[in-house]
């Protein structure tokens, strides 16, 4: 400024005027409130709120918690009931497909089959280990799922009653054959009365032997049901 002053005197004046103006404005600003305020005791130290100010909003904004960072929460796992509504039946079907690939045994005991095994029938259960076991079906038990199906066979060996439970789908059971159907449909699901001497059918050895002889002599195909019924009728006539 000192350097330029002698060269351009008008520039210096302009600056001086500008300074003067700012000074005047400043003095006015300081002086103005003092003159305008009527009741100084009511005046606060801070400027009044803006017209759109809402206290509730302000409190929310200035709260401490808003400043805290969010804690990450693990989302709830996917609902298994939605993913697999009936796992037991799937498991059962899988087990049956493994243990009974042909489905013959399932058919032999399915309630939809009119030719199914019923209490009072005489069966032969061939085992992978040991001799075949024959007997009258006293009870067919299905506990929870079809895979648990079991049969109770009763027979007399050397005049001693023997009762054996077999799991139908057991891998130890090689085959189940119907030797003779019940002559009349049993009116009970569980034929425990056959344990009493007056109802006991006794040994089924003769019936089974006859059936086995017929089976070995006859043609190999569709022997099961046919021969079984034949022996049944013969037994009924006796």
């Amino acid at each position, binding site marked *: 400024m000192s350097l330029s002053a002698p060269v351009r005197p008008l520039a210096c004046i302009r600056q001086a005027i500008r300074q003067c103006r700012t000074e005047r404005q400043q003095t006015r600003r300081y002086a103005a409130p003092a003159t305008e305020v009527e009741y100084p005791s009511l005046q606060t130290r801070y400027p009044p709120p803006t017209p759109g100010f809402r206290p509730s909003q302000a409190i929310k904004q200035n709260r401490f918690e808003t400043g805290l960072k969010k804690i990450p929460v693990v989302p709830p796992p996917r609902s298994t009931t939605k993913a697999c509504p009936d796992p037991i039946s799937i498991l059962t079907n899988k087990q049956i497909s493994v243990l009974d690939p042909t489905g013959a045994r399932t058919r032999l005991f399915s309630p939809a089959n009119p030719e199914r095994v019923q209490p009072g029938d005489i069966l032969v259960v061939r085992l992978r*280990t*040991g001799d075949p*076991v024959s007997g009258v079906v006293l009870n067919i038990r299905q506990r929870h799922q079809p895979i648990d199906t079991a049969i109770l066979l009763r027979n007399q*060996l*050397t*005049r*001693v*009653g*023997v*009762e*054996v*439970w*077999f*799991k139908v789908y*057991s891998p*130890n059971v090689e085959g189940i054959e119907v030797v003779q159907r019940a002559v009349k449909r049993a009116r009970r699901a569980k034929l425990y009365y056959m*344990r009493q001497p007056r109802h006991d059918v006794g040994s089924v050895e003769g019936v089974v032997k006859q059936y086995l002889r017929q089976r070995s002599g006859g043609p190999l195909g569709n022997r099961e049901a046919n021969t079984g019924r034949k022996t049944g009728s013969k037994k009924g006539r006796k």
Partner: protein
Amino acid sequence: MLNVIDNSGAAVAECVKVLKMDRHAKIGDRIIVVIQKQRTFGPESSPSSSKTSTSSVAAANKVRRGDIRHAVVVRTKKKYQRPDGSVVGFEDNACVLINKGGEPIGTRLSGVVGREVGGRGWSKILSLAGLQV
């Protein structure tokens, strides 16, 4: 009370002690019995005992009523489960008399025995038996 199914001469025996066990006897367990009834080989004998031609009762009977003998349980009314899931039960309780050394007193067995007898170290009894279940 158990039926005695060998031809030692005893018909019915009463168990008085299960050896080496705190529980009831199962098939193949060794027990001590008292002979309660003798088998009679006479005109009233059952057809299962084929010794109808035996002249004297005393000669056929190796044991007498009141004798205390060892025996092996071969059949139980109580059903028992096999490892393969099948369950077997008989209509009566039966035993076979043995001597102190473990040899069967009788020479023949009439009737069916449980297969567990052989597994418990009584394969001799199992081989004498006509039928096993």
